[in-house]
């Protein structure tokens, strides 16, 4: 073992410098050319930064489209999900409460039409997206409160829907923050 100790220590030091130091520094330098300059992509509205494109934020007002439930209260200084198992009785009560709340705020929606993602917590707690269906289902509420025709809102959701990659791989998503900004800009 002794024969290998010094070579091990020296090789470790050299590799720490290259892999721990130079590699991320090189990437940080290249990232200056990328969207967000490597600091994360932000969204600006009316001249001020209102958030990060890919970090969900809370919208409590019914006049806005609402993102998925978060177990970290949309606080991006941490992240995580509920880790509740499928049959956990306490967890199922939470889901039932979310269904009831949703029904109370969206009286026009039938229960079986509520997309599962609106009553289940996301994995990161920061999921910035909804499926188009989960945005559509909120249209009657937003339309009523804002006095905007529902089909106008549907066009808005469709305009803010990002299709699957190349149209065929993966899922279509709606970014809730961008949708709500577009909603405020409808005047």
């Amino acid at each position, binding site marked *: 073992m002794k024969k290998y100790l010094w070579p091990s220590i020296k090789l470790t030091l050299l590799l720490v410098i290259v892999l721990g130091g130079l590699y991320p520094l090189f990437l940080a330098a290249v990232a200056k050319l990328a969207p967000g300059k*490597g600091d994360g992509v932000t969204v600006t509205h009316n001249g001020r930064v209102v958030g990060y*494109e890919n970090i969900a934020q809370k919208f409590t007002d019914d006049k806005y489209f609402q993102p998925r439930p978060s177990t970290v209260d949309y606080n991006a*200084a941490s992240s995580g999900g509920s880790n509740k198992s499928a049959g956990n009785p306490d*967890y199922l009560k939470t889901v039932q409460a979310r269904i009831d709340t949703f029904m109370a705020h969206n009286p026009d929606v039938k229960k079986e039409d509520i*997309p599962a993602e609106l009553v289940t917590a996301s994995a990161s707690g920061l999921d910035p997206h909804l499926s188009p269906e989960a945005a559509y289902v909120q249209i009657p509420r937003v339309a009523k409160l804002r006095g905007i025709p529902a089909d106008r809102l549907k066009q808005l959701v469709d305009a803010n829907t990002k299709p699957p990659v190349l149209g065929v791989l993966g899922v279509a998503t709606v970014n809730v923050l961008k949708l709500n900004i577009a909603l405020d800009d409808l005047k």
Partner: protein
Amino acid sequence: MTTEILGVIATYGITLLLAWPLARYIVKIFRGERTWSDFMAPLERLFFKISGINPHEEMNWKQHLKAMLTINLVWFVYAFFALMFQDKLPLNPDGNPGQSADLAFNTAISFVVNCNLQHYSGEAGVTYFTQLFVLAFLQFVSAATGIAALVVVFKAMKEKTTTQLGNFWDIFLKTITRILLPISIVIALIFIFNGMPASFAGKDTVLTMQGDTVNVSRGPVAGFVAIKHLGTNGGGFFGANSAHPLENVNYVTWMTEMVAQVVIPIAMVFALGMFIQRKKFAYVIFGIMTIGMICLLIPSMQQEMAGNPEIAKMGIHQATGAMEGKEVRFGPAATGYWSTVTTIISTGSVCGWHDSTMPLTGLMQLLGMMLNCFYGGCGVGILNYYIYIIIAVFISGLMVGRTPEFMGHKLEAREVKIAALITLLSPFLILAGTALSSWVLSHHPDINWAVKPSAWLNNPGYHGFSEMLYEYTSANANNGSGFEGLGDGNIFWNVSTGFVLILGRFLPIIGPVAIAGLMASKKYVPESAGTLRTDSLTFGAMTFAVIVILTALAYFPALALGPIAEYFSL
């Protein structure tokens, strides 16, 4: 729904397309042929010169293992102290504290052994210094360790009779400079241009649309996530791992991470055939591994896309499947695929929480880690499969009444004993660990030198048992994923899984290297009509049967108490 499945198929297809040329490249490097990456040679020579290493000195299998274990010990000591005193080191913009001794012990071991079981959360438990100079560094070198050990076995299988199996330092360093580093840079660039953070900026504070003040953790994420997957490590930069929108931005980064984590394990299988010039042998192995993966994959995807039956009872339609602990941009099919791949190949990164997946999906995840040989982790996957081959050769030999031979060498008592011990090691570590934690939980729920065991479990009933079983299975398989609801950030779990990690890593590397080394030093027996053909489909099926029977015998009772019972109770 169709586009989700197409996405999964396309991702696997891209992986295969890339694995083939990568395998040819890997073989060229370890045969010492000329490649485009020869411009790295001066740097390698400089490193060897400073370190006082002669890269042309041939080593036997024992010297390989000694060198490998020594440098791993150096990494552990370095990582342990750096993590404990990270608050006093630079690059800590968020002011995070140092780790406690037991947590630093667990974290250091976990990253040294390529596992990345994280009993801390990336946002608050480590600093940028330890993320980069300790954890990302270990992600490179631990993957290179596994590949270097496998290349020794390749060399031993190729030669007729030899004790000269190449130079550990040479194989190890070239794995980093020629394979891991260049590919990681390409992957990281894809991430960066999809908007993944890569700078050293600390937490940002923003005023949201409705006027809340929130903090957003950031950091040098892209480079970390690249090697995290390429090296089948799996440790997340953030707590939410690859479910975090800054660690896995969109479907393109999802596909990239997915390809990155499985491309080397598949390429190593192809490389095996090319290196020892027995391509059919490798194709049969690849076929068996792929069939194994598909057997685990289909139930997982089906279960996740079908949704949670308990939520269906409440009258919710779940057209998009079971969404608890999943992200909309990936969906249930992609998350199911990821959960299978990440458990069979020992990555252990997640893009949706395994704790919240359906019981049968959890069963498939546990099986994936217990088998740990369908493609498997960087290098070590084939080493695990190699042990099953040895057992299969031995049993076949008994069945036909001949002295078993493998690759032109007699397989004798010593090699079979080693293989048998390695086979028994995993069930022993997993089941003894789970039994110990269950005993502490039920008999001493109020001891307070750790967190109270009565508060360990995040879920009641069968699933609670599964949480403990999963943790030891993951530690033994050096996987690193978890049923993360388990309260594992305490002395009991840090120490007990720490020891399982060490044993579950190094013995399954030492075993195959020793067997291969011992066999290669024996007299070469040319193949004859009576030789058992190890490149036939029959032998492939035999190996598959050995794998299935050994696993079922060892784990069925524990699995019946956990995910299987849970499935029938929903």
